[in-house]
């Protein structure tokens, strides 16, 4: 069964500083990888996804994530965080023929002035 590990459950970052959230997955076949963001009182919103092709994917909110098969990782990065980026971030993995997503425990990101 697939699984996801997100270390560093709570992260505090200064506004304007860079952010990197780590995601390691375990899956026996080609993974399909996602980052979702959950703001207080909101549902999960898709931030990024990787299915195939270019291993570096980017979002309109300035985030990017890179799929590294050799490291079984899909880390999320943003060069300069904004106060509105404070939220909980979840990495998830699924696969061809598998109907479920496996989620990591999430990263709670706090942005300080």
């Amino acid at each position, binding site marked *: 069964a697939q699984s996801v590990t997100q270390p560093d459950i709570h992260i505090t970052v200064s506004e304007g500083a860079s952010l990197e959230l780590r995601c390691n997955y375990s899956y026996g076949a080609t993974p399909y990888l996602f980052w979702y963001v959950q703001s207080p*009182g909101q549902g999960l919103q898709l931030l990024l996804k990787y299915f195939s092709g270019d291993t570096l994917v980017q979002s309109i909110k300035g985030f990017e994530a890179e799929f590294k098969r050799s490291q079984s990782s899909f880390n999320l990065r943003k060069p300069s965080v904004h106060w509105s980026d404070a939220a909980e971030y979840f990495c998830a993995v699924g696969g*061809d023929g598998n109907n479920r*997503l496996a989620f990591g425990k999430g990263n709670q990101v706090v942005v300080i002035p």
Partner: protein
Amino acid sequence: GAGVSQSPSNKVTEKGKDVELRCDPISGHTALYWYRQSLGQGLEFLIYFQGNSAPDKSGLPSDRFSAERTGGSVSTLTIQRTQQEDSAVYLCASSSRGRLGTDTQYFGPGTRLTVL
């Protein structure tokens, strides 16, 4: 267009009572999923519906949990004889084709269930 909607947004019930949670998927989406988000457990898959196929119930934690999907659209998750450990946020998601490898799941805002 409209996203996934869920009702109620909050539900407080007494231990032993039955509850029903509702999900309206995005129009045209054939696949529907239920997940549970609880402290300490993170997000757990519960059940998956795809068109007229038999649902994948492999994530349901006990036989007190059941779900149905009427007319290929609205879904209801029922929890019978609720227990305190059932307290969680129940999330519904839908996707267009249900073949996970090429689909993105879109989530509703969730129903927060509190069992007293």
